[in-house]
Each structure stands twice: as structure tokens, then as C-alpha cells.
């Protein structure tokens, strides 16, 4: 473990500011699914799946990481569905936030808590 000091964690405010900037306002809640383990034993690699019917993009944020940004999936007409999976780092127990941009221009949001027993930032 090469980390000496944990940087300050992203606040809820920083996360919501990122959501509003991305969505151009506060998204409506619901219409986005987040699949993640309730308890992750290793925060270095946590499987996560997001989906939202009709979404052209889905952004993932981790509200308790040093920086909330995780990644954004972009879908096209050749996507079989607006669904994708990846593996992410979580510094500790926190909420995952997913924001979907829909084809009609609306935005939707969901959040889900993941409990982490060993953090993914060396802590």
C-alpha cells in the first residue's frame, strides 16, 4: 500500500454539482438501474452495471471518492440496449450515482449505496 495520506473525499455537494452540470439541472429520480454488490469486500475492483431504457449516455459518479467522476457510457443506434458494465474503485462505503441522458433530452438519476470493507485508495 503506497498511499500515505488519503486526500479529502468528494462531498455530497461536489457530487450533486457534477450531476447538475452534466444534466443541465436536477434530473428526475428513477428510470435508471444500478446493479452493484451490497457489500464489496475489495474496493479496488467493484463490479457495476447501469441501464436506462432510451438513454444515449449514462454517467457514473462515486460520491465518497476523492473525485466523484468515474466514467460515462455512450450508446448509439447500434446499441442493443442502453446497458453497460465495468469495474470501479471505491475508497470506502458510499453512494454510487448514475445519471442518464435520454434521447428526448430529459435526464434521469438513481443512487445506490455500496458498503466497502477494504477501500480502493490504499486505505
Amino acid at each position: 500500500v503506497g498511499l500515505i495520506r488519503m486526500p479529502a473525499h468528494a462531498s455530497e455537494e461536489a457530487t450533486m454539482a457534477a450531476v447538475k452540470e452534466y444534466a443541465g439541472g436536477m434530473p428526475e429520480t428513477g428510470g435508471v438501474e444500478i446493479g452493484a454488490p451490497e457489500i464489496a469486500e475489495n474496493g479496488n475492483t467493484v463490479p457495476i452495471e447501469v441501464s436506462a431504457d432510451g438513454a444515449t449516455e449514462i454517467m457514473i459518479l462515486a460520491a465518497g471518492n476523492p473525485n466523484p467522476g468515474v466514467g460515462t457510457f455512450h450508446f448509439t443506434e447500434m446499441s442493443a440496449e442502453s446497458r453497460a458494465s465495468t469495474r470501479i474503485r471505491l475508497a470506502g462505503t458510499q453512494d454510487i450515482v448514475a445519471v442518464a441522458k435520454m434521447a428526448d433530452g430529459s435526464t434521469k438519476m438513481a443512487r445506490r449505496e455500496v458498503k466497502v470493507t477494504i477501500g480502493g485508495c490504499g486505505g
Partner: protein
Amino acid sequence: MAKIKPRVKVPKKAKAGEAVTIKTLISHPMESGQRKDRKTGELIPRKIINKFVAKYNGTDVFWMDMEPAIAANPYVEFSVKLSESGTIRFEWTDDDGSVYDIEKKITVA
């Protein structure tokens, strides 16, 4: 540094218009830029893959922007529906501008 090697799981054949699941993995440390060297106390510079794209016969079909919170050896799974046979190409772009790629052929019937 370990060799950066992409691996993908793509079916050789698919039915037109049906969902095809694509799984991709690339060996890469995804150095976040937030870890400190234990001996020197200095930050280890950030070096991550910041973009992944899948192209089918030259058209972007799926892409992803990545931040340092993506785990080492980035894994991405998504699905596509195809109407014609062709080549799916995957490209991963590193912070230093390097692009790692791999291609697979899919026969669509």
C-alpha cells in the same frame, strides 16, 4: 511496466438484429495520480486509459470516457445489434496518447 494487452470476447457469428454481448479487458495499471511513492513520499503521476471506443465497419457503436476511479485492467461489457457482417475494432487511448487496439470479424446471417 507490464505489457499492455487487450483481450476481447466477441462471437464469431450473430443473427441480424439480435443482441450481441461484447466483453473487453485490457491489462493496464490505471495509475490514479493520487497514490504516493512509499519511499519518496511523492505523488506517482497519473497514467490511465481515458477513452475506450468500439467501432463497427468504421462507425462508432459504443464508447466510454474513463476517470481514475475505473479499476486497474479496465473491463467493459456492452451489447450491440448488427445488420451486416463486418469487423469490430476496439481502441483504448492512454493519457500519453498511445492507442491500443484489436479487431475481430463477425459474420452476420
